[in-house]
């Protein structure tokens, strides 16, 4: 890790706020339904579609369930599945991206075509199709989503790794007889890591939106189980009675995704000012391939 | 600058009087008290180490100081009109028409994705208002004028396809497209191969003599200045320490810094010898120093050098020096010379 990058990020006010919000969300995720004020599944036919009150801070839904409790209890599924997707993408994308430093042009060619192909698959449609195959469960669907976003990790990591691997100090280390694996370990990995972190934070925000979109469509969850997107979806049918009802679940999604994006931006700015080149997303890869050619393996 | 009446009856094209420039939003004064003049058909060289203020001065004269940099005091005028307070729109009437500029790393001053000919034509049109077709004809003439063979072919190439020397010629063609009176060249030959550098200097000399172009030439290399310029301004740590005709400065430098600079410069002799160095490092930009800014590195420095500001004093025809001990140094040196020859 580039020394002090995180410390400098944490000096940025917006990043501090974002981190506090994310810590709060993390508490919701860890403790989930055990800190929900009421039973998220308890239906109360006497209190349908009520506005906020002392008993129900965020009101009740069309079955008389406490909205606040449903949102709190739904945090775990909504956030953890997104984390699963990003973790999968990291493993499938970032590791080969880093490894591309070691392999020649054929690995590069194949990996890039494969990447291009995966990137043409529309994430949501693919996720929907996946439920058709594997049944209506969230985890496999999100692993599939992780597979679909892995190309972004691959590209960003690969571009950064190749760039750093061509710095003269890498040649210098090789001239000392340091092995390639160790050279990459000491001179390249640490510099690529912040870039991967930025991508991970952005991807997590995106995956969160994907989860909420899927749960909104009713995909990946079996009905009584609460999710943020599901709460939003159920509110939608009663817009005329409770037009402000979507606000709370929407705000929760936005706060989480927004905090992640702010953190990613702060991180990106910090890396940008501390030296390493900015890796442009989706940069055209042919030039990089050319550069590899000019770098004869030794 | 000397108070003598200028030998040429023409008014200077560029006239800087007592210019001070601040950087970092006025917090640091990087350049102070710079006065210099450039006339048509003459070339003035600014020489100094990096950070000495020569590039800031020349960017101020071009009206392209970076954000946070500002001309604090003094006047900059083109042919009698003061330009120090102009806004970008007013500068546009001067850029390209009255002054052209070339820089180090010529390739980076051209748009990498547009053929060079189109960029030249565009400059011709901006400076002259010619029609598209006439401008293209003019552009091809200019490419030939700056010594590029196969102008038609070069016209269609993008910057990445040309060598550094060719790019600098293209940039010179662009700079003189509007037939300006002044050309500002900031380290224009620094990154080039020596043989190419000599050719570019040759070209600049020709343009100066044939078209009466005034040239303000910035370089860290006294040798290059000696090849092209008739007048030298020596910068040290944000101040002019010596200025005068090039032969005189080379033959009989008076400021200890100029003398040291000549000793470390390449002498055109390649035998093994003990190489000269100037001890220490220059002060950091804007560092406040009472007295002479070179005193800490100067073998002749005395107490008087460190107490109060030293003025630039005229000591001959257009020859000014900023040194408090100039007479004593002359004595020491002639003594040494006598001992050596005895």
């Amino acid at each position, binding site marked *: 890790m580039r020394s002090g990058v995180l410390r400098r990020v944490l000096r940025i006010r917006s990043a501090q706020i974002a981190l506090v919000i994310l810590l709060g969300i993390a508490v919701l995720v860890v403790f989930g339904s055990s800190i929900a004020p009421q039973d998220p599944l308890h239906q109360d036919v006497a209190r349908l579609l009520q506005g906020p009150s002392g008993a129900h801070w965020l009101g009740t839904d069309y079955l008389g369930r406490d909205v606040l409790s449903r949102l709190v209890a739904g945090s775990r599924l909504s956030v953890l599945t997104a984390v699963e997707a990003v973790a999968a993408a990291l493993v499938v994308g970032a590791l080969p991206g880093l490894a591309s430093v070691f392999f020649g042009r054929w690995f590069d060619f194949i990996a890039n075509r494969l990447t291009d192909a995966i990137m043409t698959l529309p994430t949501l449609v693919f996720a929907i199709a996946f439920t058709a195959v594997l049944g209506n469960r969230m985890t496999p669907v999100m692993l599939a989503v992780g597979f679909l976003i892995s190309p972004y990790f691959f590209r960003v990591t690969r571009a950064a790794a190749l760039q750093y691997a061509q710095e003269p100090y890498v040649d210098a280390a090789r001239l000392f007889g340091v092995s390639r694996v160790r050279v990459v370990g000491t001179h390249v990995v640490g510099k690529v890591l912040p870039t991967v972190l930025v991508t991970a934070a952005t991807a997590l925000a995106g995956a969160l939106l994907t989860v909420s979109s899927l749960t909104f469509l009713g995909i990946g969850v079996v009905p009584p189980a609460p999710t943020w997107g599901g709460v939003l979806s159920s509110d939608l049918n009663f817009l005329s009675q409770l037009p402000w009802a979507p606000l709370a679940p929407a705000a929760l999604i936005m706060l989480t995704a927004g905090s992640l994006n702010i953190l990613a931006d702060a991180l990106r700015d910090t890396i940008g000012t501390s030296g390493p080149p900015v890796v442009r997303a989706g940069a055209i890869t042919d030039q990089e391939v050319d550069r590899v050619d000019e770098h004869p393996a030794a | 600058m000397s108070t003598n009446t200028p030998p040429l009856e023409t008014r200077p094209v560029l006239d800087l009087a007592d210019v001070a420039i601040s950087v970092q939003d006025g917090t640091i004064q990087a350049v102070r008290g710079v006065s210099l003049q450039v006339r048509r058909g003459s070339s003035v060289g600014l020489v100094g180490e990096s950070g000495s203020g020569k590039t800031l001065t020349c960017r101020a004269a071009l009206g392209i100081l970076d954000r946070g940099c500002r001309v604090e005091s003094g006047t900059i005028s083109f042919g009698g009109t003061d330009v120090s307070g102009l806004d970008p729109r007013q500068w546009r009437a001067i850029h390209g028409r009255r002054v052209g*500029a070339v820089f180090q790393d010529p390739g980076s001053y051209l748009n990498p994705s547009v053929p060079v000919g189109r960029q030249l034509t565009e400059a011709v049109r901006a400076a002259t208002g010619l029609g598209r077709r006439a401008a293209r004809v003019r552009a091809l003439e200019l490419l030939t004028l700056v010594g590029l063979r196969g102008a038609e072919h070069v016209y269609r190439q993008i910057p990445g396809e040309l060598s550094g020397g060719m790019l600098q010629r293209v940039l010179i063609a662009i700079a003189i497209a509007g037939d300006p009176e002044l050309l500002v060249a900031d380290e224009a030959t620094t990154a080039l191969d020596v043989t190419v550098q000599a050719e570019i200097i040759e070209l600049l000399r020709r343009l100066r003599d044939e078209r009466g172009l005034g040239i303000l030439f910035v370089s860290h290399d006294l040798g290059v200045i000696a090849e092209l310029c008739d007048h030298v301004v020596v910068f040290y740590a944000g101040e002019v320490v010596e200025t005068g005709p090039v032969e005189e400065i080379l033959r009989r430098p008076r400021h200890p810094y100029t003398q040291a600079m000549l000793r470390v410069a390449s002498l055109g002799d390649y035998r093994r010898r003990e190489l000269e160095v100037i001890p220490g490092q220059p002060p950091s930009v804007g560092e406040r120093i009472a007295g002479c800014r070179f005193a800490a590195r100067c073998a002749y420095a005395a107490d008087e050098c460190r107490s109060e500001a030293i003025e630039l004093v005229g000591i001959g025809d257009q020859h000014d020096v900023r040194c408090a001990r100039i007479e004593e140094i002359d004595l020491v040196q002639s003594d040494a010379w006598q001992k050596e020859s005895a």
Partner: protein
Amino acid sequence: MRIVSSSSRLFTIFVPVVLLSTFITYGLGALSNSNPAAAVLGDTATPADIKRMDHQFGLDKPFLVQFVHWLGRVLHGDLGHSYFTGIPVTQSIGQRFPVDLSLTLLALVFAVILGGAAGVLAAVRQGSWIDRGITAISAVFTSVPAFVIGVGLVVVFATKLHVAPSSGYVGPTTDPQRWLQHMLLPAIAISLEPAVGVARQLRTALVHELRQNYVTGAVVRGLHPSRVLFGHALRNAAGPALTVLGAQVPFLIGGAVVTETVFSLPGLGQLAVSSAEQRDIPVVQGVLLVTSVIVILANLVVNAGLGKLRPRAGAVTA
């Protein structure tokens, strides 16, 4: 691997990509353990019935043979029939396809206009309140799913102000004005995310370009500021922004699929969701294939645009 011409680029890059993505699409369907015959015939089917049905669907052949057959039929415009309704997949997709195509194209246009203008404005006024405002609005929109924006638009413009229809679809050939009325809100809803992507990338790239020496060079040549901005800096900054736009298309289509639900548009999304619930594999495959092709086509367009922006192919770089 230098690009000699755009046609060879097409063959070296896009043909393998199309083959691979169709393979993944098909493989997804074929990998499903669900037996369509059993699903269609119900609990009372005999093994012989299932075998006959398998043969009818071609499911008794090796996987690769099935893929090649399927690909052959796809090339002839045959995506098979729904397991349940028996309606040709091309027919049900054909009915709904215009909705998504209109939505996607309109959203792309909005994204270019909105994102382009915001990006240029933010870069030119870098550090001003305009720049900060655009950055803040961008941060909000990247954190909101398209369907939430859709819901917001419905609440404000349809439910409260009654200035736009909240649901339904009219074909552009039937009544262009009403088509636009129906498409406007959903298209805006899904265009905001890609617009933000374009704006951010454009701002970054343009700020970078405006710091380059050639911009200083253009200024000292006395060029008009608009010429420096649009003729030089933007030309070079547009490439990365266009690349980002291309990369956004898969998400744009995803947004379209969800937003259809909000605005009750009869599009591919609803077809995909309902067939996924029924495990109607040929329909799901068809939708995936068609949307992938949209993405690939959009990327071809983007690539053509990039080719125009970049220096001539095969240029020697020093």
